[in-house]
């Protein structure tokens, strides 16, 4: 009972921090602050995933969300201006749509099975086979790894191909541009042409 209360207190405080950070992101016009706040948002999300025992997801969220994407946001920011141009006006229509979708989602959670329930539909279909197979056939203690790398090997191969494509795409789009610019500057005598 005591640990249950602690869990609820931790959940409530993390959720409150998450909401405060989100409001901060919305209200800030300064893009540096927004980038740092979204890093903080990811870090709090990672803590929430830990409380849900999803350590692998928390790991990824902390490394990618709080680490790399914050740095990439800052890197992208140095290529543009540092603050938003105009304060966004209050639009009634989008707010109503958001509220309606949010209400529908909360209504949808009413019929969801309780957290950790073994009766949940997701645990009925093929998961028992994976759990038994990881224990007996693959003998890998981390079931997440055995599902990702073995049972869902094709998915992971596809995901790796997606990452590969993303990296190649960014590299070709903006990676080599600067050297070409420098060569262009050497070639073209009239600077007006480049504008």
């Amino acid at each position, binding site marked *: 009972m005591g640990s249950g209360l602690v869990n609820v207190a931790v959940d409530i405080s993390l959720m409150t921090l998450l909401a405060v950070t989100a409001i901060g992101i919305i209200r800030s016009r300064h893009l540096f602050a927004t980038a740092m706040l979204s890093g903080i948002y990811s870090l709090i999300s990672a803590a929430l995933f830990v409380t849900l025992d999803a350590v692998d997801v928390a*790991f990824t969220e902390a490394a990618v969300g709080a680490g790399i994407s914050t740095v990439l946001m800052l890197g992208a920011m140095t290529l543009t201006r540092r603050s938003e141009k105009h304060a966004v006006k209050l639009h009634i229509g989008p707010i109503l749509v958001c509220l309606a979708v949010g209400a529908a989602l909360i209504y949808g959670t009413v019929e969801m099975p309780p957290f950790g329930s073994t009766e949940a539909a997701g645990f009925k279909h093929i998961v028992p086979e994976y759990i038994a197979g990881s224990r007996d*056939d693959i003998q890998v203690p981390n079931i997440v790894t055995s599902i990702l790398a073995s049972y869902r090997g094709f998915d992971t191969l596809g995901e790796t191909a997606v*990452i*590969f494509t993303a990296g190649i795409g960014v590299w070709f789009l903006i990676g080599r541009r600067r050297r070409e610019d420098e060569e262009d500057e050497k070639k073209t005598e009239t600077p007006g042409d480049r504008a």
Partner: protein
Amino acid sequence: MRHHLILRVVSKLLIPFILLYALYVQFHGDYGPGGGFQAGVIFGAAFVLYALIYGVETAQKAFPASWLAILVPLGLLIFGGTGVASLLLGGTYLDYDVLAATPTGGQHLGIIVVEFGVGVTVTGVIIAIFFAYAGRTDDIQDDDW
């Protein structure tokens, strides 16, 4: 960030441990949380940290951009090649059972090799994307923020 003494000293101390931790996450993914993707991101993040503190030019001396053209496809080839190897050994594509003498040993080998491939590609892509962004801006002065 030439004059940030604390950042320079602390990151210089931390970076070897971050790299080592990435390798731990990579090769311990069967037993604990983590795996190729997380390890790749952490490994890449160590270089990104190095580049942030010591500058992109210095980081490219430690990790030449020409390596990326090898690393990024290499990881995917390791992954795909494992599938081809299992095909050649008489199994189906990405069926690791046939890779070693026992099916369980084959699964262990296949998972480690495949995760290594994921880690290599992810490391390369993280560093490539960072270099692509960072290479376009001149050194950022502190009062630019």
